[in-house]
């Protein structure tokens, strides 16, 4: 459907072909519209990557070179994997739209800073191959690609993925691990301010809480992400954990703790909002977010995995086609 511009025409028919004898210009003919809002996949992805920057910097400050290494490995592997896949599929490379880089970075944010190189490489490659390319590339993913890579790593190499195991030298603790294995008293001493300042072990970027939140707000302010999914996600998490906490405060952590511990805020803004795998109308988006938030709480409370947010979003992704069926009647339909 590309328009046949004069230079293309000339390439097809030989220079000078179709040129009228007069000096009148050869116009391009096409169907409307003739205006464009100006956004592109690349500009969207660059905005998202810019919103990751504060947390990336904070991660580098907190963990030093190891964090930079994981981000670099994930990003580079994602780009190389996508380029290779497209080569194999006989397609033009689309790595320059930076979507793969974004996916790689989101994955890196969920890995521990001490992740071995092969873990980062396997995760990023799985994200791109299993999360994106086997479904035909950008737009085809039924699941959030970065979370697919995360899930592959989480299920295959649990020790390496566990920040408490892999970062024994750190004096920080992972609040959700302590909650899971030692009960709510174990996390009594952890204040919200500590959590907010990122004084917790977890995904290397996801735990840089204030920086992640700043990035999330930036996404909202720029209109890159709409408020429905993040807000509904966090509401679902707070409401569900709140119900458990109110019913039995002794055996459950407070909703505020659940909100601030682990990767919930990061996932709400940066992974649950992945467009192809989430619905696009307002009501389905709200339901999707609520569902993912509630599932996060349920997995954290009953599941064997301390942080349920990525799994919850993957599960909610499965409901997307169903939620997308909730749609208004078209204009004038009776």
């Amino acid at each position, binding site marked *: 459907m590309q328009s046949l511009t004069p230079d293309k025409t000339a390439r097809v028919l030989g220079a000078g072909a179709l040129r009228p004898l007069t000096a009148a210009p050869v116009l391009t003919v096409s169907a409307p519209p003739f205006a464009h809002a100006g956004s592109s996949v690349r500009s969207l992805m660059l905005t998202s990557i810019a919103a990751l920057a504060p947390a990336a910097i904070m991660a580098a400050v907190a963990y030093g070179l190891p964090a930079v290494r994981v981000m670099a490995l994930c990003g580079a592997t994602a780009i190389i994997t996508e380029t290779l896949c497209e080569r194999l599929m006989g397609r033009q490379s689309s790595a320059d739209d930076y979507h793969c880089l974004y996916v790689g970075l989101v994955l890196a944010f969920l890995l521990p800073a001490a992740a071995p190189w092969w873990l980062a490489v396997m995760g990023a490659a799985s994200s791109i191959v299993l999360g994106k390319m086997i479904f035909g590339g950008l737009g085809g993913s039924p699941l959030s690609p970065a979370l697919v890579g995360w899930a592959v790593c989480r299920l295959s190499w649990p020790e390496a993925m566990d920040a408490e195991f892999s970062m024994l030298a750190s004096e920080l603790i992972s609040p959700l691990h302590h909650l899971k294995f030692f009960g709510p008293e174990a996390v009594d001493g952890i204040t919200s301010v500590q959590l907010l300042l990122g004084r917790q072990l977890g995904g290397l970027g996801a735990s840089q809480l204030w920086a992640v939140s700043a990035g999330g707000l930036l996404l909202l302010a720029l209109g890159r992400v709409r408020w429905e999914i993040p807000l509904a996600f966090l509401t679902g998490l707070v409401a569900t954990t709140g119900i458990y906490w109110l019913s039995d405060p002794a055996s459950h952590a407070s909703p505020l703790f659940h909100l601030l511990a682990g990767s919930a805020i990061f996932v709400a803004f940066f992974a649950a909002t992945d467009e192809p795998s989430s619905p*696009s109308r307002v009501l389905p988006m709200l339901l999707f977010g609520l569902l993912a938030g509630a599932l996060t709480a349920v997995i954290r409370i009953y599941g064997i995995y301390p942080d349920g947010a990525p799994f919850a979003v993957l599960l909610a992704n499965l409901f997307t086609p169903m939620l997308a069926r909730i749609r208004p009647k078209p204009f004038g339909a009776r």
Partner: protein
Amino acid sequence: MNRMFSPSTDPGPAAMALPAPVRACVPLAGHAPRVSCGQAVTKGQLVAEALEPGLGDAHAPVAGKVDLVDKWNVCVVAQGEARAEPVDLAALEGGTLRAVLRSLGVDIAPLAVINTLVINGLNSEPGVTSAELLLRDFAPTLQAGLDLARRVMGASVCVLALRQGVAASLAGCDTRSVPAVYPQTLDPLVIKAVTGKENPEGVAALSVHELFCLGQVAETGLPCDRTVLTVGERNFLVVVGTPVSEVLAAAGLDARDGDRVVLDGLFRGFTARSLGQGVDKGVYGLSVVPAGAHAPVTDAPCMECGKCVRICPSRVDPGLLSGCAEFGLLKQAVDNYIDACMECGLCAYVCPTHRPVLQYIRLAKQQLREVAESV
């Protein structure tokens, strides 16, 4: 709010009347020529007959000699003042009146028999101000057109929809202010704003450009031969068939290789094939979109970002429909309400992958029409 969608402002000074062209080219979409090269024609003489019911015939806008007849145009080199015999419309009624109007070049498809007539007095697209200029400066002609339209349509109620702050009136019509932000300016949405209902029965809308054409016929008994169009910041009153090059020159614009010369507006218009193409009846705007003004349309797959879904005034899923068209799934397109699309162009305007969303939808609609005709 995006500047692109903001309501158009004041139409500015009176329309600049361009002299009748030395060579007028009448575009022939849906017409079969009925004259031959070298033939002398009078102003207002039939040059091409409409092939579709509801479409009006085409006439010579100037007297002179036909010097080109092809699939797309009939061109007349102006010479002399001879004009066709005016028709007296006052005595006619009903079917005869419709038939005569059609032979005078009026598109009668929009003139359905209804009880409520909405006059869309808004500038239908961003950047266009000609509709409000017509309301301000050509009220008598519009009134004549309205009276004729009401005779044909039998409408008992008439509402003139205006942008807030515009003072205009037509005898026999109530006025109503409605939101004037694109795409609210399109007929179905103006009707909704006026009546509160979506596609209600017995209601039709006419634009002031349609009234202007009809008014010229009513006043002269001859085919409509002029239109007012917005070029840049100004409005021009041009004779039908004036080559776009002359209008552009008058507005101080010029087009180069690869540019698009757009007739009507940027969201719903169409492109001229060459600078010699004549301006048709009812055209309301003209602009040049330079080559490379925005990223080219490509057949990129939909990234499911949902921007088009949320902006679509028809509440359909344009990304999905364009996919149906891409893969020839016409039945799925119908099941997903392709017919509801009012072709506002916003889906392709917002699409970050530069996918030809509306273009695909129009393709599918065309294929559906062909299927319907073949059975």
